[in-house]
């Protein structure tokens, strides 16, 4: 009167295999679930009892003990309903235990025996597949997201009776295959094309440089200058995600419960723009039941923070770890989890609280103290971790209306092609290393891959004196110059590349006042 059923449990963004052991023994009718279940798992016994009876099966009046093994890790989520129900049926002989042992199960039960979709299905499927599971029975509401996975057969089911019919061989369910392993197409441009942006060629160029190596970028400018408009167009010039990247992103969205039910694999780079009132927890992830936050939902994509200094200071400081390590670790009493967070940070801010400092036609009403207070919200260490600082100025009316320009306006497709070429150069160059882009270069790697000629060194030295740069800014400038050289398909970094890179690093270096500049 004993059975073993395979299922999984989510740990961070990975999944471990869990064996549901069920034992029926004589005694007072009772169900006990052990193995550190949380409330959502413990409540399963009520759902299972009612669901089995309503579906026309018997629920054994025995003393039922369910152990979720390994018993020392916490289990949570409603996807344990189906495997536990299968365990009870296998132990009581309603289904063949041998047949059931060839599958892994996930699914949540309704009281009428229907099987509802669960959160994190693709993460569970990937984890189980990597640990040897070949066949997975899962809610049909999750079939789209999991169908893209290679090397695992999936059997979507709607009702517990379907599972029983399948296992008994009476009415087998056909394995579902969507379009497994299909590489995604390029990002559609439905968020707009850079060609729509009149003027701002300098900023467009800066964004292209940023996109070419996922450099973080901060845009500073008065309201209406076009900061948000351009940030929204940024994903359009990023290269398409690889299949593995798509899986990873889908997994995180699935765990966070943010996947559209029939959405399938996410093939577009995420663009997350949380409001500035967001709490540190929502940004970083966490909560009593840890979930990925916005930084992880923006994994492989863009995290856009508009009104950057208006974010809570704690929320901003939380960004330091992901910017440095490309992941975020959340320690809670219940568990410590690590979520990936390889983001490209795009931040936007006004030059002062009212927004019009330095504006030619509108008067700024802030006191100097207020301006300093506002700027000081971006702490030095944080500003230092943002590779590029770009000032944006509103396009004057006559330029908005001008329809003839004597240089070629960049459009998104053209920009993306250049970005893709530059990324390919970088991936080739770093094939021996653990990194793929220039923005990930560490000091020893900078030495190895970014040699400077005499003229560049001289220029950099002069810039250090003029702008009073920090050592870290110097590193940033060299990394940026490497990217700029790659965009131009140049093997060597020249002084022009260095000069352009310096231009993206002077806002905070100068303290942005005439006094400090001298």
């Amino acid at each position, binding site marked *: 009167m004993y059975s073993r059923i395979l299922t999984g449990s989510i740990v961070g963004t990975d999944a471990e295999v869990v064996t549901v052991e069920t034992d029926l023994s004589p005694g007072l009718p009772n169900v006990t679930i052990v193995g550190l279940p949380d409330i959502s798992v413990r409540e399963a016994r009520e759902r299972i009892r009612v669901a089995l009876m309503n579906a026309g099966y018997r629920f054994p009046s025995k003393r039922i003990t369910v152990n979720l093994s390994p018993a020392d890790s916490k289990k949570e989520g409603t996807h344990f309903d189906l495997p536990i129900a299968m365990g009870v049926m296998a132990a009581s002989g309603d289904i063949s235990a041998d047949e059931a042992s060839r599958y892994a199960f996930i699914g949540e039960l309704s009281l009428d025996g229907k099987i509802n979709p669960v959160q994190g299905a693709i993460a569970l499927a990937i984890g189980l597949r990597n640990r040897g599971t070949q066949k997975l029975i899962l809610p049909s509401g999750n079939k789209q997201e999991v169908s893209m996975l290679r090397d695992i057969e999936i059997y979507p089911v709607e009702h517990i009776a379907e599972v029983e019919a399948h296992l008994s061989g009476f009415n087998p369910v056909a394995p579902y295959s969507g379009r497994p392993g299909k590489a995604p197409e390029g990002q559609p441009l439905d968020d707009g094309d850079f060609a729509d942006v009149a*003027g701002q*060629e*300098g900023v467009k160029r800066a964004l292209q440089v940023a996109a070419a190596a996922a450099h973080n970028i901060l845009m500073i400018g008065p309201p209406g200058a076009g900061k948000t408009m351009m940030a929204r167009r940024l994903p359009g010039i990023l290269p398409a995600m690889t299949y593995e990247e798509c899986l990873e992103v889908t997994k995180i969205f699935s765990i966070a419960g943010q996947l559209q039910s029939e959405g399938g694999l996410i093939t577009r780079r995420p663009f997350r723009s949380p409001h500035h009132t967001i709490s540190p927890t929502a940004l970083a992830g966490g909560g009593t039941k840890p979930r990925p936050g916005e930084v992880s939902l923006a994994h492989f994509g863009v995290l856009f923070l508009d009104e950057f200094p208006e974010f809570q200071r704690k929320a901003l400081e939380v960004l330091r770890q992901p910017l440095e390590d490309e992941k975020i670790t959340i320690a809670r009493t219940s568990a410590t989890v690590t979520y990936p967070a390889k983001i490209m940070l795009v931040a936007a801010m006004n030059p002062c609280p009212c927004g019009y400092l330095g504006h030619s036609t509108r008067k700024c009403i802030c006191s100097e103290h207020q301006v300093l207070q506002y700027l000081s919200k971006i702490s030095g260490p944080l500003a230092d971790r943002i590779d590029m600082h770009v*000032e944006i100025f509103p396009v*004057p009316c006559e330029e908005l209306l001008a329809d003839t320009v004597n240089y070629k306006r960049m459009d998104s497709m053209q920009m993306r092609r250049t970005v893709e070429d530059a990324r390919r150069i970088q991936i080739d160059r770093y094939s021996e290393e653990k990194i793929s882009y220039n923005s990930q270069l560490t000091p020893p790697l900078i030495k190895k891959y970014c040699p400077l000629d005499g003229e560049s060194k001289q220029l950099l030295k002069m810039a250090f004196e003029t702008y009073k740069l920090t050592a870290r800014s110097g590193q940033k400038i060299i990394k940026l110059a490497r990217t700029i050289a790659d965009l131009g398909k140049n093997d060597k970094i020249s002084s022009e590349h260095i*000069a352009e890179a*310096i231009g993206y690093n*002077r806002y905070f270096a100068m303290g942005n006042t005439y006094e400090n500049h001298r």
Partner: protein
Amino acid sequence: MKITDEENRIKAISIDNDGYPELLRVIENPPEVLYYIGDLGICSTLCLAVVGARKATPYGKWAAYNISKLTAEHGVTIISGMASGIDTCGHLGALAAGGSTIAVLGCGPDICYPRTNRELMNKIAQQGLILSEYPPGRGPHPGQFPVRNRIISALSYGVLVVEAGLSSGSLITAGHALNQGKEVFAVPGNINCIYSAGTNRLIRDGAMPVTAIDEIPELLGIRKIRPKEEEDSLLGEDEKVIYELVAVHGTVTLDRLCLLSGKQPAAVGALVTILEIKGRLQTTMGKIHVAKY
């Protein structure tokens, strides 16, 4: 009466004392006692007051800094009120030229207001003079600032207003200067710029417009020192093109420079940075202008 504080740093001098500045003694309501740090003797040198708005545009700051620097190079002492904005740039220009400068405070001479000017205040105390009619410990109360403006104008031969809105305190200084029979100079600005409305009105009302950065020494009757030859040969061909464009068009954006030069933003960005490092151009808030003619 001549008292000194414990550190012998802040000194005081009353109106009946010999060392009291003559120029101040003769005005309508001279301060009874002057508190000061530094050398009171520089009050008797030729002084130019450089005043203007706290909130100034890059243009105003540029003008204040460079005019002060050039004038100080001719041995003129720059007087101002050590407020942020134009005042600060005036002092900095004088200090950069190695000249002397006087800060007339609206609070006690031991109090630094605004606090961001701490470093500047120390430098002025070493290289020039900190002056106040208020005793040590007196905080920066509003109302004291317009009053100290009469001291600024009294000590100077002329008052240069660099940038002022229509309600700026600098206009009060200009008013004092008129009453005391001093010269008033004003830096003209665009007529659509709110920060220049006050100075432009001063010009309409008869103030002497400053039409070139090196005009002041001449207006003060000092023989001009020949400026060091600028070596344009230091600039490359492309750099020259960009520099000329900015010089002709005044304050421009990077976009406008691309339009004007027909070059790609990447190239223009690089050239502007190089020119800035060479000290020829300057960028502020996304706008580019000439730093040095």
